[in-house]
């Protein structure tokens, strides 16, 4: 497997409470990997460890290695010499509740990521912003309201704006934390189609509590329970013939 991220013995704590136990996992490049599991199993924490967001919380701790085999960075992102801010530029993140910057316009929401990455040329910025909005299936809907506040869009549009914002500066990995759980079914299916399209250019890791969503769009699925990785397999395999009994019981609804 061409793994873009290799997680080795990852452990994480919320203060005194340990929430991840010895996670070992390889994330395949240019595929969609879904992480499923009951509430509190640590899947969101795991995601936030991939872009070193978890450690920003007061009292939070992370131990272990995450090897990133990227274009501009190869190595352990938790190496003490590594600047976490730099790592986050190789990853884009989309959150459960759409959070576009309301004090910036739609255009600026997408542009701000570029400015952070040092792109100053106005023409180039314009080109990339338009391109990102197009890739996020949003351009047609907002091309006349680019100057309006980011918060003036509908829920589904806001989330696509967040996706456009995340992909604008060309991260290699897209981390999505239940991106459609706050949206209606039609908005959800638009975004799912978008993700399947995006995996041609980006590696996508998506945390979802909706198993059917994982079944629909993921190439690989990981099942987590109580902070441990229980099973990881290609999606058809996991959903037709899971190898672990816990997995079987969870996905058939016998618990959780």
């Amino acid at each position, binding site marked *: 497997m061409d793994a873009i991220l290799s997680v080795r013995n990852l452990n994480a704590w919320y203060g005194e409470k340990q929430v991840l136990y010895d996670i070992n996992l390889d994330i395949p490049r240019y595929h969609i990997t879904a992480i499923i599991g009951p509430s509190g199993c640590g899947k969101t924490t795991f995601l936030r460890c991939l872009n070193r967001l978890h450690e920003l919380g007061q009292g939070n701790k992370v131990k272990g290695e995450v090897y990133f085999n990227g274009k501009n960075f190869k190595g352990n992102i938790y190496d003490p010499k590594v600047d976490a801010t730099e790592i986050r530029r190789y990853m884009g993140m989309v959150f459960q509740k759409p959070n576009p910057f309301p004090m910036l316009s739609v255009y600026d929401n997408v542009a701000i990521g570029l400015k952070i990455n040092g792109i100053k040329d106005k023409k180039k910025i314009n080109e990339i912003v338009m391109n990102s909005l197009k890739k996020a299936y949003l351009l047609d809907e907002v091309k006349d309201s680019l100057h309006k506040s980011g918060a003036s869009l509908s829920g589904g549009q806001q989330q696509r704006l967040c996706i456009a914002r995340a992909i604008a500066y060309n991260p290699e990995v897209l981390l999505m934390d239940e991106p459609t759980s706050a949206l209606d079914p039609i908005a959800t299916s638009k975004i799912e189609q978008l993700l399947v399209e995006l995996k041609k250019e980006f590696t996508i890791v998506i945390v979802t509590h909706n198993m059917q969503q994982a079944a629909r769009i993921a190439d690989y699925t990981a099942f987590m329970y109580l902070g441990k990785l229980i099973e990881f397999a290609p999606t058809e395999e996991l*959903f*037709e*013939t899971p190898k672990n009994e816990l*997995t*079987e019981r969870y*996905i*058939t609804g016998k618990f959780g």
Partner: protein
Amino acid sequence: MRLIDEGLQKLTSKIIRMAILSRETVELAVRAYLNNEKLTEKIFHNSETLRILQDEVSELAVELIARYQPVASDLRYIKSCMEIAYGFSRFGRYAYDIMQVLEVFGDLSKCDHTKLIKASETVHKMIDLSIEAFINKDLNKAEEVEKMDDEVDDIYESHLASLIKEKPTNLNCAVSATLILRYLERIADHASYIAEAVLYIIKGERRPRK
């Protein structure tokens, strides 16, 4: 109790009804042939019932899939039930075909029935075992069924061989026996498919087709 469990129970009870009915129908057909009994109508009626039940199983399976998006063991179970229902409906069809032979060839009680009796006993046993394997999720019984399939195949093939070697004395007996052995062999095949389905339900594995 999950929402899907009620549907799965309905599915199971339909399959069991089909199992009992198809087993009885095959038994009737063989008896009719051996004792020259007129059971055409009953067998025809059973065969029709089995066809209807098969459709019901199919519809119920699709409904469960559409409504509950089952996965893993549930999904494999529903898929297998569709295949098994088809198998049982085939039993009814072949039983009917056996009756047709009787209709066409008339009284065959004077023919040598040894091979036929042996084959039909094995087939009855196979049907029983495959039904038991399904109900009890018993892998051992399922394996036994697959072994017994070879026995029935052998009887059929040896019958064909003997026909080629020596010209038969009574053409009616020979042809009717060939036809009926063929139908019994097909029934045996389907019984072994049912046993294979049990393996798929439990383990998710498929035997490679011979």
